[in-house]
Every structure is written in C-alpha cells, then in structure tokens.
C-alpha cells in the first residue's frame, strides 16, 4: 500500500508540475477552450509516461538491491522449494492454424526439458486445437501421433480439436476445463509460440504448492528466436529493459498482478469456480463474448480472494515476437478491441478490486493513449493556426476587463520537451547501466555494441512510435464503432512486401506530408516541432519493409548488434526448439487429407479417434461427398466438405478401402502409387 501511495504521489506531483509548466508554455496560459483541452490531454499523456518512468526506476533500484524482498520466489529457500512435492498439472497449448513444426516442435522441446528434471510423471500435455482448415488440423493430429511415438508420450500427450469455435481462446480453455479440469490441481497455459524450461515449470508448481492463497503466477516471457530486424529489436528491448520494468511492475502489483494469457500457472479449482466469462451485456463493442480474457480472469480470481502474482524471478520462460510491424499492428487490432471492451468491466464490473480496475485501465490506455496523442497534435495545430491566421485575442476570458497578451516561453517549452524525452528514454539507459554494473554486457555484444544497440533501438522505437500511434488510433475508432473482429492465426515468419507496406502506410504518409507542409506554411518553428512525428510517418513504408527483412536482422547479428543473451549463449530448451522445428514434419497443405485416406496406419489412427456422425439426412450428404471425393479427389470439395468427411469415421474407412482399389489412372490410384513410391 505504501509503495502504491508513494507512486501515486510522485506521479500526480510530477504531472501537476508538468501541467503547470505547460500552461506557461501556451500563449494564452490556458485561457481559451483549445488550450484547456490541450492541458487536459497533456496531463493524461504526461501522467501515463510518468507511471512508466517510475516503474522503470523502481525496477532499476530493486535489481541493484538483488530483487524485491517481498517477491514470491524469495519467500522460500531453494532447499525448501526443491523438497516440495508436486501435484498433477496440465500443460495446455491452445492453437489456431499455427505453423505446426514450430508449435508442436516447441512442445516437444518443453516435454524433453521436463523429462530431464525427472518430474515428468506429474505433468500431462494437452494440444487444444481450434484450427479450421481440415488439412491443417489433420496434419496437427498426425504430428501429435508422431510425437507420442517418438517421445513415448502415450497417455501423457493428448490432442483435442473443438468442432465449433466459441469465445476464442478462453472458450477453448473453458471447453478443456469442462471436460478434464477436475483431473488437475494446476494448469500451465502456453501460447502457440511459448517455450518454457522444465525447471521453471517445476518451480511454478512448487510455488503454488507452498502458497495456497495464490491463484495464478505469471512469468515474464523473454522474446527469443527473432530473425527479422523488427523481431530482433523487440527481442533486444525485451531482454535489456524487460526484466527492469517487470521487477518494478511486480513491486507495485505484488499479489494483485495481471495475467497475460500464457506462460502462467493457474490453480484450476478456483479458476473453474470463479473465472467464467459472461458475455457483455452492453451495447455495440461492449456486447458479446469477451475477446481479451486474461486481465479479466485475473480480476475475477482476485475477486474470489486469490492472489495473482507476476514473478520476475522465474526465468526460462520465452515467447516470440511478430516478425514485422505490419504483423504486430494486425495483432494489435484484435488486442485493441479486446482491451477497449474492458472499459465496460472497468466501469460496471461488480466487486472488482481497485488494483485490477487499474490493470484494466492500463490495458485500455495502451491503445487509447494513441488517439489522445493524435488529438493533442491536432489541437496544437489548431492553436498555432489560430495564432497565426486570426487576429490576436486580447480578451480570451469572457467578461474579463483585463487583457491577456500572448506570451512565448521557449526556454520553458524546451525544458518540458527535454523532461518528456528524459521520462521516455532514461529508464533505457538505466537498464544498460544495470547490465554494465553486473558485468553482463558481453551477453549483449560488449559495452560499445550494447550502447550502439540501445541507440539503434531508440531510433527504431522513435520511428515506429508515430506509425503505431496512427494505427492504434484507427484500431480504437474501429473498435469503438463496433466493427466485426476477425480472429486469425498470427504470422510468425513472413516478410513484408513493398506492396503490402505501401497499401498499409500510404494514408498515414500522405496525411503526415500534408500536415508538415501546412505546418511549414503556418510557421517554420512549428514545422520543426512537427518533424519527429511527420518524418516517421512519411517514411513508414520503407521502415516497415526494411525492419521486416530477415537479411537485415542477420546482418546486425553478424555485427553483434541488438544481441540478446539467448543468442549469445542459447539454452538447451531453445536449441531443442530449433532442432525440433527442423525435424517435426509439417504438411498442412492439401495432401494431409490424402495421406490420412491412403496411409493405412494414419487412416487407422484417424478412424480410431473420430466419431461416427452419420445420422439421417447427414448420412446421405456424407455418402454423396464420399462418392464425389472418390471420383474427383478432395480438390473438388470445399474445405467444409473435406472437414465433414475427415470428421466421419465411416467416410474415412470407406475412402481408404476404395482408394486402394482405385484404378491406376484415377486420382486415388495415382495418390496410392505416390505413397508407395511406385
């Protein structure tokens, strides 16, 4: 409580001071409507970055002090933790049309790592697929079977595909819990790109075993496996600044932290009892299923009296970054809508704790800050235009007999701009200092390269901030206007093409160029002020393309720039992921269905694990589809029709039998010949 009170006091004090200075910077000292609005926006934005600044500074201090004495992990001596018995835990990986080699290859590496701890017997793995494309999920199931055989994971690794997607990822998890939740004490939720070390998984369970009041423990996943420049910038910042900010955040949140949706452990019984997500009953975007579930589930867990912790001390937790800005913004579009929905819960959610309302507000502000910044820029343009184009208003305050002379305080303006830059960038240098003090700079490429990498990261961040601002503003407007959300798997590997970048960024570039020209026409000084925002938007397309290039990322890596500790010295589990990715076969194309029909063992596997759906009219439909598929092959059917066949036990058996009796020059005759290598 003391920590939060101090943070509040410092942030409010700093913001009040900033607003007071800003008021003196404005020509009419806040004496008209536009300036009052400017001051209000400035207060929100300045307060927002102040919170981030002080969290960073707190994290820096705590890291130098060797960690937070109130942290969850530090409460228990290592020996005591090691002696703690484990309980049955499910490791669940919800997937949705994800690259199979990467996701299930990652799972294989996690399995192996857990095996090495000697504690595998306490864990069971569940692949929870929501994939829609039949060839994709048939491939997933085939690879699952291969993994079971290879790892000896029969009865320890399971595969479930929901025939109907409802309520996104949280619906997938809820579906799992309804069927098997009572089987487990704990559940560790992974994302499709999650990687976790076995030792970390074991420690998470042991911590839960020792802390009965804790409902969730969230780890802070480090970004790894970045190849493009964009992903490597994210990876570098996550590894250099991430631990410091996480330490600071955790120090203020303590047992009222947020859940980030993956790389976290959950106590299953209270989660099932209290964390069901009702559909929102509001209007427009505030109606329907909750699309961004994690913060809400943490809030509900806390409402039920359980603590939620963010534990920065739990290392060995990893995830991946989208490979490009375009992909990140596509993902942000979904997240923006999800976070904006939280406004409803923030205002009307019953009995939520204040800390979790603030966490919801934090999520909302992650996106809402962008339109506020945009509005701030628009109002400064209006204020400048009024000053330049209209006669000076000496009596801005109505009915006041005292004239007001517009005043300029360039020194104050510069000071305020400097303070803002300091708030944004000083924590980054503090993170660098911390690494230097601990003599860990070699892990980041050495002292000089580390400093160069920080400068490069700051440049890229500065270039991308206005692009993100404009995109997020659009997402917020679309989200609030209730545009339909399209749920799609994340691109995890492809580069951005010039065409894609130009189409995406052209409106922003044109807007920024027009704004800069207008600013020049108004006042050269205002033009200079506009450049840090206008230039990145004008060059958004090339920035987007170049940063998405894997070749640029590799060039920087060769020169040991933006290096991360995992690149410097890859851990066993990360090396295993790379190896698994190469070894785990990936099909996912049209041939997966053909293989399931032709291959005797695969056919038996899928037949044995598929229900017989034939009833009444459906039976006739499937019989017709079998005939068409037999005659013309699956290419002649729609994905939905192939799914109908792939989900029907009798259809798979019939097609298998008929394929092996098909004449050599027919579709299935050729498929059989290809399979047997004739």
């Amino acid at each position, binding site marked *: 409580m003391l920590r939060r009170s101090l943070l509040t006091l410092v942030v409010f004090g700093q913001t009040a001071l900033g607003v007071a200075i800003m008021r003196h910077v404005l020509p009419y000292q806040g004496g008209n409507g536009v300036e009052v609005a400017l001051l209000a926006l400035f207060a929100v934005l300045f307060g927002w970055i102040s919170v981030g600044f002080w969290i960073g500074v707190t994290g820096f201090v705590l890291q130098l002090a060797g960690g937070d004495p109130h942290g969850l992990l530090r409460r228990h001596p290592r020996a005591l933790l090691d002696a703690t018995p484990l309980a049955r835990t499910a490791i669940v990986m919800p997937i949705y049309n994800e690259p199979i080699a990467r996701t299930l290859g990652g799972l294989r590496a996690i399995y192996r790592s857990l095996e090495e701890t000697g504690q595998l017997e306490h864990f069971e793995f569940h692949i929870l697929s929501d994939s829609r494309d039949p060839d994709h999920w048939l491939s997933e199931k085939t690879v699952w079977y291969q993994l079971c055989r290879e790892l000896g994971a029969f009865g320890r690794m399971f595969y479930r595909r929901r025939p109907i997607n409802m309520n996104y990822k949280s619906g997938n998890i809820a579906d799992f819990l309804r069927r098997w939740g009572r089987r487990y004490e704990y559940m560790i939720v992974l994302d499709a790109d999650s990687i976790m070390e076995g030792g970390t998984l074991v420690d998470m369970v042991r911590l839960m075993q020792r802390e009965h009041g804790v409902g969730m423990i969230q780890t802070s996943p480090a970004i790894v496996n970045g190849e493009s420049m964009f992903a490597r910038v994210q990876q570098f910042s996550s590894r250099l600044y991430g631990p410091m900010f996480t330490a600071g955040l955790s120090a203020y949140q303590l047992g009222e932290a947020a859940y980030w949706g993956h790389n976290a452990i959950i106590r299953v019984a209270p989660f099932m009892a*209290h964390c069901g997500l009702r559909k929102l009953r509001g209007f427009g975007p505030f109606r329907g299923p909750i699309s961004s579930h994690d913060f809400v589930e943490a809030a509900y867990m806390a409402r039920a009296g359980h603590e939620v912790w963010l534990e920065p001390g739990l290392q060995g937790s990893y995830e991946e970054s989208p490979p490009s800005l375009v992909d990140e913004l596509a993902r942000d579009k979904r997240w923006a809508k999800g976070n904006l929905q939280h406004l409803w819960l923030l205002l009307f959610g019953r009995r939520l704790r204040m800390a979790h309302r603030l966490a919801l507000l934090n999520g909302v502000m992650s996106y809402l800050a962008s339109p506020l910044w945009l509005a701030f820029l628009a109002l400064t343009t209006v204020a400048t235009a009024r000053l330049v184009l209209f006669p000076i208003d000496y009596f801005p305050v109505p009915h006041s007999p005292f004239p007001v002379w517009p005043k300029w305080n360039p020194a104050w303006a510069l000071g305020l701009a400097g303070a803002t830059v300091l708030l944004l960038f000083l924590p980054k240098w503090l993170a660098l200092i911390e690494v230097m003090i601990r003599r860990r700079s070699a892990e980041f490429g050495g002292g000089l390269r580390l400093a160069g990498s920080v400068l490069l990261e700051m440049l890229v961040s500065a270039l991308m901030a206005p692009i993100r601002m404009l995109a997020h503003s659009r997402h917020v407007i679309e989200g609030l206007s209730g545009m339909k959300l399209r749920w799609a798997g994340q691109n995890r590997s492809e580069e951005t093409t010039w065409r894609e970048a130009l189409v995406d960024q052209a409106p922003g570039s044109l807007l920024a160029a027009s704004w800069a020209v207008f600013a020049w026409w108004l006042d050269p000084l205002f033009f200079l002020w506009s450049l840090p925002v206008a230039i990145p938007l004008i060059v958004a397309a090339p920035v987007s393309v170049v940063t998405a290039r894997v070749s640029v990322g590799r060039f920087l890596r060769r020169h040991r720039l933006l290096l991360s500790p995992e690149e410097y010295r890859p851990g066993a589990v990360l090396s295993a992921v790379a190896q698994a990715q190469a070894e785990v076969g990936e099909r996912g194309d049209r041939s997966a269905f053909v293989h399931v029909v032709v291959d005797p063992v695969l056919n038996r596997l899928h037949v044995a694990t598929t229900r017989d759906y034939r009833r009444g009219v459906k039976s006739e439909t499937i019989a017709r589809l079998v005939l068409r598929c037999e005659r013309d092959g699956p290419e002649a059917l729609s994905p939905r029709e192939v799914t109908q066949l792939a989900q029907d036990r009798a259809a798979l058996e019939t097609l298998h039998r008929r394929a092996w009796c098909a004449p050599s020059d027919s579709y299935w005759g050729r498929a059989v010949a290809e399979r047997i290598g004739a």
Partner: protein
Amino acid sequence: MIIMMSERLLRRALGYLRLSGLDIDTAVERSVLDIVSQVIAEEASRGEPIDETTAFERLMAQLETVFTLPEPSLPPVTPVMERGSIGYGDVA
C-alpha cells in the same frame, strides 16, 4: 497386358503391407505372388479384359484374409473425461 497388370497388383499389395507395418521378407513376397497369380487367373478365366478395379478389390480382400496385419499402437487421444462446470463469480 497380363504382365503389366500383375506388376501393378504386386506393387500395390507389397506397398499396402509395408505401409501397414508388415516386414516384407521372402515368405511374404511368395504369398503375395501366389495371391496375385490367383487373382489374375480368376479374372482371366472370365474371358473378358481384366477390370483393374475388380482385380484390386479381389486383391485387397485376399490380403486381409491371408495376412494378419500388425495393429498399430495408437495413443489415447484424450484422457478419461472428468466433467466439471465453469462458475461465474459475480453471482453472489
């Protein structure tokens, strides 16, 4: 024509058995040859050109009769269901 047909039948039969997990040794090859000869003889005895689909159907039926194919060991796709329900903490 009959030689070509025999080759196709032989190739398909051996392919099927191999993909089903059977070790293809000399004894298996000899049995398959017998089956193929039998299928060809039966089809040729009708005095009409051999219909490939019918020949393959006979072949597959014979293979299932003669050979006991190894049952692939299949993992359980899910554990035994232990149903529970999801609660909503806001209902006091």
